[in-house]
């Protein structure tokens, strides 16, 4: 796992960190908690091109469905196949075993559109009030 400091976040509660120039993407604690027990993850296709902040996956619980937006543009390199049989990995380990996809970033400058860990923490505090 990357250090917490290396994660970047979106307003829709996706996270991303960069490992050897590959972006690893998932959903944050706040989102998994809001959804409850996740029953299904619709994964993107490997090789698919995604746009920053466009929908590229979705997760379902018993009572809600939620779209997942790409934190960064690029090509899908790999998807977490384990989620097909065990979608609960997102509930159990949203920052590690519950990662959703790896993206080959098209433009690393897009990082500037994301929140740092610190900014995201502040953002969450704002949501609670």
């Amino acid at each position, binding site marked *: 796992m990357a250090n917490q400091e290396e994660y970047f976040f979106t307003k829709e509660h996706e996270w991303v960190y960069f490992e050897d120039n590959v972006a690893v993407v998932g959903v944050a604690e706040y989102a998994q908690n809001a959804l409850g*027990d996740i*029953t*299904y993850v619709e994964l993107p296709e490997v090789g698919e091109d995604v746009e920053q902040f466009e929908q590229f996956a979705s997760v*379902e*619980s*018993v009572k809600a469905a939620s779209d997942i937006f790409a934190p960064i543009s690029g090509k899908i390199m790999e998807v977490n196949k384990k989620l097909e049989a065990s*979608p609960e990995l997102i509930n159990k380990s949203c920052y590690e075993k519950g990662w959703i996809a790896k993206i080959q970033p098209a433009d690393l400058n897009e990082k500037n559109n994301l929140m740092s860990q610190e900014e995201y923490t502040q953002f969450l505090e704002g949501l609670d009030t």
Partner: protein
Amino acid sequence: MQLIFEKSRPGRCGFSITRCDVGQEAKIPSPYLRKKECLWPEVSELDVVRHFTQLSQRNFSVDTNIYPLGSCTMKYNPKFTEKAAGIRGFADLHPLLPQLDHSLVQGALEVLYHMDRLLSEITGMDHFTLQPLAGAHGELTGVMLMAAYHRSKGNKKTHIIIPDAAHGTNPASAAIAGYDIVTIPTDKKGVLDLEALKKHVNSQTAGLMLTCPNTLGLFDSDVDKIAAIIHDVDGLVYYDGANLNAMMGRARPGDLGFDIVHVNLHKTFATPHGGGGPGSGPVGVKEHLSRFLPISRVIKARNGSYALDYDYPDSIGYIASFYGNFGVILKAYAYILMLGKEGLKEASEHAVLNANYIMEKLKAYYDLPFDRRCMHECVFSASRQEKKGVHAVDIAKFLIDQGIHPPTIYFPLIVKEALMIEPTETESKAELDILAQALIAAAQLADDDPARFKDLPKTMPISRPDEVKAAKDIRCNFFA
């Protein structure tokens, strides 16, 4: 309880086949034949009778329990209407007969024609189609009528406006017909936020879908102003008739400025819900939209005979295979004939009386997000109980143990922990007192011992089901 398949014994059969009185030499060529056996159960007639009788006993129903399910108008379903629908001259009638000769089906066409007139008068519209097979089907029909109207005028319209309190079928129906959805919030009084509406209405607005009274059970006194705002941009105003039971004889959508309405015969007009259908969702329009109505339409000739007319070139076409759920229409027709003018009006009056009574009885125990006079239903919030860890769903399970079907919960979405209660006019004060007592007992238990809710219900054949497992390990076929 066993499944019917688990009762199967090789060699049993519950069907007496008629002897074949013709030759049996002809054969279907083998490539066209099925090879894999059909695995229907091998059971006797008594097996089937016991099985389904026992299944029926595992249901709550209007005939066995108080059923104050909000938005669903679970009024008593009179028995004579079931008998009426079973009359052979109606039940055995083939739907294509009018295409052979209208004289073969004069009685059925008469029912359809009169129902069109009655529903038009009840709602203040000019013409009805009885084709839509359920409420949501009526909504789709209504949105298609809007689309046809705008097409005919060359209007470029892209979106339909829907309040955030609306039923999910509204946005789903509008989206299926090809429109974008613009959602308008509810204001502090529990009705459509007029300022927000004005901001979002523009030349792209195809129309507005409005439930009236709304899903909070509130009548919006500005309804005519809302209609005028939409009409100003050549939009159409659609009346979702889910709650018509609140205002029969007291107000008519047609007089309030609505252009299109649907009514749910399986709510307002006492036809049974059947555990999820069949329903019927006739759609009425004002004169200026009548040329777009689905075909066929029933007409009455000068000599008093009835016929089906397909000659409407601007029609949106076929919405259903035939003339609607005729069996359901017939029951509603019988109901309307029996109640008549005074009876319909009285039904709405007592529906509203009952809802206000239950609201008053429970006010002290549950949060009432919009504390004002309601119409045919009232919406409480279990947010006070939630602070103790008791949710709307827990209260629902408590009621089940009291032999009461729970209210609608978690709807409308804009009310946290919503409990939506619609007693209907056919419940008596005595029954409402029982309902109120049970809900008060639930509130008291939430105060005293909230942990007790988690194991409820305890008196049913099953306890709470694992819905996560159902959605994850999907099993919807015994044989798979």
